[in-house]
């Protein structure tokens, strides 16, 4: 561990109310964790350092935030964009080519906006709160909202979020929701909303939800209890709502799937953990069914390895790959 802390780091520490030496130590630990070679003893030492002092925890939070933001960069995108052709020798370039071709990747990216939001949940975290008008709001993993109840009553839901809004016992008027490029108006009732990037999934379990037109002169669409729809720039497309209210499974900490391809399942499960969870093309279309706890995704991965001919490779705690089961894979699966 280096003794002298660089001046720029001292300034960073001062801006964030951290002790420079603890910040330096946190960086050292982060670099160790990223090595992919950390043994059980070193892991315990890291845990001991972390629990020894709240100053250490605050320093760690700052460094982990960086890790989160880096981890949220879609891997393929980062690899593709940050690579510098001019600087890579021919030999190195040939070496890298061998590593291309990873399977489906899962990434989330909207870290900065989430960090400053009024209410947010981290990866794997569920949060619930009561809004000033009495609405019950639940945030699924890695979600964030901004509240504006001072001027007009408005809920802004940030990119990639999934929420459930319960207004069944609210007497106040409708609540305006802004999500992606869509404006919604929730009456009294119970709705579940998820931002899929280019479109929204809206489900009305009870009461009504109005999808307001994007352009002046357009007409609003009203969805009633038991109805669901996809909302995008192309309009509102109604689609059936599963009658068993599966859309609210996450509010009970459960991920339930029925005959879902592995790649799609990992995309879902990956939302509940930091970093990347992806699979080899060779196993991406294996079929997954079952119910999984979302508060322990490592356990979910273990159960997966028991149910399917796959091996789980922990390259780092943040980079997990599901590959086909073979002898090499069997050996590596127990490295961590």
């Amino acid at each position, binding site marked *: 561990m280096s003794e002298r802390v660089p001046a720029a780091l001292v300034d960073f520490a001062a801006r964030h109310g951290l002790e420079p030496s603890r910040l330096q130590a946190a960086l050292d630990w982060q670099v160790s964790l990223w090595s992919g070679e950390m043994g059980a003893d070193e892991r315990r030492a890291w845990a001991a350092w972390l629990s020894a002092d709240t100053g250490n925890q605050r320093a760690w939070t*700052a460094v982990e935030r960086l890790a989160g933001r880096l981890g949220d960069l879609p891997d393929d995108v980062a*690899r593709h*964009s940050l690579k510098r052709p001019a600087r890579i020798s021919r030999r190195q370039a040939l070496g890298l080519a061998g590593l291309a071709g990873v399977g489906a990747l899962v990434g989330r990216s909207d870290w900065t906006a989430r960090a400053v939001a009024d209410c947010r949940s981290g990866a794997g975290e569920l949060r619930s709160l009561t809004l000033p008008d009495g609405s019950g709001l639940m945030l699924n993993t890695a979600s964030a909202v901004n509240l504006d109840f001072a001027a007009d009553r408005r809920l802004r839901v940030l990119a*990639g979020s999934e929420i459930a809004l319960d207004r069944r016992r609210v007497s106040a008027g409708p609540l305006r929701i802004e999500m992606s490029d869509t404006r919604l108006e929730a009456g009294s009732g119970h709705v579940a909303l998820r931002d899929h990037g280019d479109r929204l999934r809206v489900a009305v379990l009870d009461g009504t939800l109005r999808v307001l037109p994007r352009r002046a002169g357009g007409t609003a669409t009203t969805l009633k209890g038991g109805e669901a729809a996809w909302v995008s720039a192309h309009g509102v497309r109604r689609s059936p709502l599963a009658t068993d209210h599966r859309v609210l499974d996450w509010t009970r900490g459960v991920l339930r799937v029925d005959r879902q391809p592995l790649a799609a399942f990992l995309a879902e499960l990956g939302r509940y953990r930091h970093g990347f969870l992806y699979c080899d093309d060779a196993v991406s279309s294996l079929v997954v069914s079952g119910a999984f706890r979302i508060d322990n995704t490592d356990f979910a991965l273990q159960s997966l390895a028991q149910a399917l001919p796959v091996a789980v490779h922990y390259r780092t705690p943040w980079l997990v790959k599901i590959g086909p089961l073979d002898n090499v894979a069997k050996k590596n699966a127990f490295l961590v």
Partner: protein
Amino acid sequence: MFSNALNADIGVLYRDHSGWLFGWLRRRLGGNTADAADLVQDTYVRLIDSGRYPRAGEHRAFLTQIARSLVIDLHRRRRLEAAYLEALAARPEEVAPSSEQHTLVLDTLIRIDEALDRLPARVSRAFLLSRFEGLTYHQVAARLGVSHGAVRKYMLKATQACLLALDEPSR
């Protein structure tokens, strides 16, 4: 070398040199007048933000110094954006990010790219191999032909640089 900038002085700099600067930028941007016009404005904004004012006889040199870095920034942004879009095009549609996510990813990419650019090539290579190729430090060491200890040192340096780069206020 510099006195505090006054708005009136900036006004004079704008009157005397903006036309010339526009021509200078347009030549460097392959004749693109829209980009050149944008960067003229950005140059003066950055001059005002810097709170510095060039000495007599150094006006144009000072303006081109700012403009040159803006041209580099623009090329960087375009290059990363193109690479990003190319990577996105190769992915299944259901994981396409929203425009907000798009902006944030691009912002992170630009900051990391700038930070890595300021580091020695070996340091940034080590960082990219570890973080985005999933290599262990032993594998990175073998790939770069350096010791394991050197990889650790490179990683620490790059991680510090990224921490600072992501903390800078956006421009």
